[in-house]
C-alpha cells in the first residue's frame, strides 16, 4: 500500500470568493503531487451576460471578483469600445487609470498582509491591512463605495473626480508611500522571511510560458509582460512608469514585485492627478448611440494579471457571446510546478504566492489520512504548522 497521504485544502466557504479544492498528495512532509477541483461556485456569468444589455453587463462583471472589482468592467469597456471604435475623453482615461491603480494598491496590500499571516508574521498582516484602509476610504470619497465602485460605462466613466478631492488623495498617497517604505524594509531585510521565501515555490521562465501565466506571477520569473505597457489602454501610455520584474521566480520575488509595483501605482496616480488639473471638469464620457456588429478582444492588467474579455455583438444591445478569463484561471494551474517538491509547511505560502483570492480557503482546510479517513490536521493547524517553522528558524537565526 502506498504511503501517500492526501491533504485536502478547500473546497469552500461562504466568504471565499474563489472556492477551490486542492488535494496535496504527500509522502511524509513532502508534497509529491497536487490536484484540484473547481466550479463549486460557477455562476454562469458568461451565459447571464447574454441576457443583459451592455450597460447592465458592467454591474454583472463588476461582481466577478470582490477584491479587484474594477478590472472586469475595465476589460469589458476596452472590448466594447474596440468594437465601436469609441474614443473616450482624456479626463475619463485618467480617472480610469486612477481607479485601476488604487485598486492595485489595496489588492497588493491585502496580499502582503495575508502572506505575512501565513508565515507567522501577524505584525506584517496588521500593518498591511491597516494601511489598506485609507485606500478604501479614498474609494468611498471618489465613488461612494469602498468596493464595487460602479465607475465605468461605455464611452467613459460615470462620476468625475472633482479637483477639490485631489489634495486629500495626494495627502493619503504621501502617507502610504512612507508606510510602504516601512513595509518593504520589514520584508526585504528580515533574514527569517528570506529563509522562508527564497527558493520556495520556484517557477522558471519556461514554466510560466508553458502555463501561459500572467501578472506578478510571470513578472517574478523574469517574464516582462504587462498589458498596461504592451497594449496600452486608458492613460497608461501618457504617464511615466516602469514594469517591475525579478528573475528568481520564488515567493520572495513575487513579494518584491508586488511591493515595488505599489510605488509605480502611486507614481501613476500622482501624474494622472497633475495632468487632470489642466483638463475641464465634467468631460468624462462620450455619448454612444449604438454598438455595431463585431468582435472585441479587450484586456486589462488586474492586480493579479491580465483579465481578458472576448465579446461578440450583432448590432443589438446585448452581447451574443461573452467570454471572460480571469488571471487566476491560468495562474492557479501553475501549482503543479510551484508546490510539488515542497514541504507541507511551505505549501501554504507557495499556493498563496500567486494570490488566488485565497483569503478564506485555509479555514476549510482539513487533512485526512487517505487510508483510515482519520483527521490529521485542520486548516488552522496547517497554518500553525507553517508559522511554527518560522519560529524554529527565528530561534536558530536570531
Amino acid at each position, binding site marked *: 500500500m502506498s504511503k501517500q497521504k492526501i491533504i485536502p485544502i478547500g473546497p469552500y466557504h461562504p466568504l471565499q470568493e474563489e472556492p477551490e479544492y486542492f488535494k496535496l498528495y504527500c509522502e511524509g512532509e513532502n508534497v509529491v503531487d497536487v490536484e484540484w*477541483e473547481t*466550479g463549486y461556485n460557477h455562476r454562469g456569468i458568461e451565459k447571464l451576460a447574454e441576457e443583459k444589455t451592455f450597460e447592465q453587463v458592467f454591474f454583472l462583471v463588476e461582481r466577478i471578483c470582490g477584491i479587484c472589482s474594477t478590472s472586469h468592467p475595465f476589460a469589458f469597456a476596452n472590448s466594447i469600445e474596440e468594437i465601436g471604435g469609441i474614443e473616450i475623453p482624456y479626463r475619463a482615461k485618467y480617472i480610469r487609470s486612477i481607479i485601476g491603480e488604487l485598486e492595485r494598491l489595496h489588492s497588493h496590500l491585502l496580499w502582503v498582509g495575508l502572506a505575512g499571516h501565513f508565515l507567522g508574521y501577524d505584525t506584517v498582516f496588521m500593518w498591511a491591512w491597516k494601511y489598506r484602509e485609507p485606500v478604501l476610504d479614498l474609494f468611498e470619497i471618489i465613488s461612494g463605495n469602498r468596493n464595487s465602485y460602479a465607475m465605468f460605462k461605455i464611452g467613459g466613466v460615470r462620476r468625475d473626480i472633482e479637483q477639490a478631492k485631489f489634495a486629500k488623495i495626494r495627502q493619503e498617497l504621501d502617507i502610504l508611500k512612507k508606510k510602504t517604505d516601512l513595509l518593504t524594509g520589514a520584508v526585504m531585510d528580515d533574514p527569517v522571511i528570506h529563509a522562508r521565501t527564497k527558493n520556495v515555490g520556484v517557477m522558471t521562465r519556461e514554466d510560466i510560458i*508553458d*502555463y501561459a501565466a500572467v501578472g506578478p506571477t510571470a513578472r517574478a520569473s523574469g517574464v516582462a509582460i504587462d498589458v498596461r505597457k*504592451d497594449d496600452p489602454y486608458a492613460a497608461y501610455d501618457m504617464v511615466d512608469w516602469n514594469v517591475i520584474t525579478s528573475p528568481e521566480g520564488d515567493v520572495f520575488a513575487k513579494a518584491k514585485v508586488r511591493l515595488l509595483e505599489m510605488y509605480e501605482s502611486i507614481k501613476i496616480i500622482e501624474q494622472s492627478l497633475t495632468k487632470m488639473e489642466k483638463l475641464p471638469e465634467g468631460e468624462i464620457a462620450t455619448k454612444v448611440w449604438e454598438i455595431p456588429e463585431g468582435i472585441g478582444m479587450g484586456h486589462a492588467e488586474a492586480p493579479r494579471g491580465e483579465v481578458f474579455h*472576448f465579446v461578440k455583438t450583432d448590432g443589438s444591445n446585448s452581447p451574443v457571446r461573452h*467570454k471572460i*478569463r480571469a488571471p487566476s484561471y*491560468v495562474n492557479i494551474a501553475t501549482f503543479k510546478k510551484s508546490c510539488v517538491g515542497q514541504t507541507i509547511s511551505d505549501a501554504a505560502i507557495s499556493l498563496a504566492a500567486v494570490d488566488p483570492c485565497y483569503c478564506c480557503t485555509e479555514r476549510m482546510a482539513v487533512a485526512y489520512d487517505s487510508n483510515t479517513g482519520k483527521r490529521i490536521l485542520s486548516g488552522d493547524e496547517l497554518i500553525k504548522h507553517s508559522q511554527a517553522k518560522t519560529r524554529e528558524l527565528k530561534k536558530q537565526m536570531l
Partner: protein
Amino acid sequence: MENKQFIEEIKSRFTDKIVEVTEHNPLRITFTIDPASLTGLAEVFLSEKDFRFIIASGLHTKKGFEILYHFSNDKDGHVINVHVVLPHEKPAVDSLTKLLSGAEWIEREMHELLGIEFKGHPNMVPLISEGNWPEGTYPYRKDFKS
C-alpha cells in the same frame, strides 16, 4: 511586427489552409483556418513568434461550433485569433495540450459546456461539474433549455 508582412508570411506558409484573414484594427487580426492545420499554426505562433496563449472562446452559432484561440504578441500589443469552425454534429479538433499545458483547463471547460471533443487531451475530466450532469447536457449550446 508589420501586419501586412506577417499576414503574407502566414498565408504563404499555410496557403489553401487559410480560409479568411480579417484585420479588425491594426492590433487585432483573425485567421480563419482549416481545423486540421490548427496545431501547425499554433506551433508557429508559440515557438517561432513567441506569442502567448491567452485563452480560447467557444461559440455555438448557425455555422456550427466556432473556437477562437486568442494569442497575444506582447512585444507589440497584438491579439491574434486563430478561428476554426466545426460541424454541428460531433464537433472535434486536435488538442493544443501537446504544445502548452496552459490549454488544458479551457479545453476541459469547452468540452463540458459545449460538447466539443479535443483529440489527444491527456485528462478530459469535467472542470466545472462533478461529472453528474445528464448525458448530452451542454449549457452553452444555443439549443440548451434549463
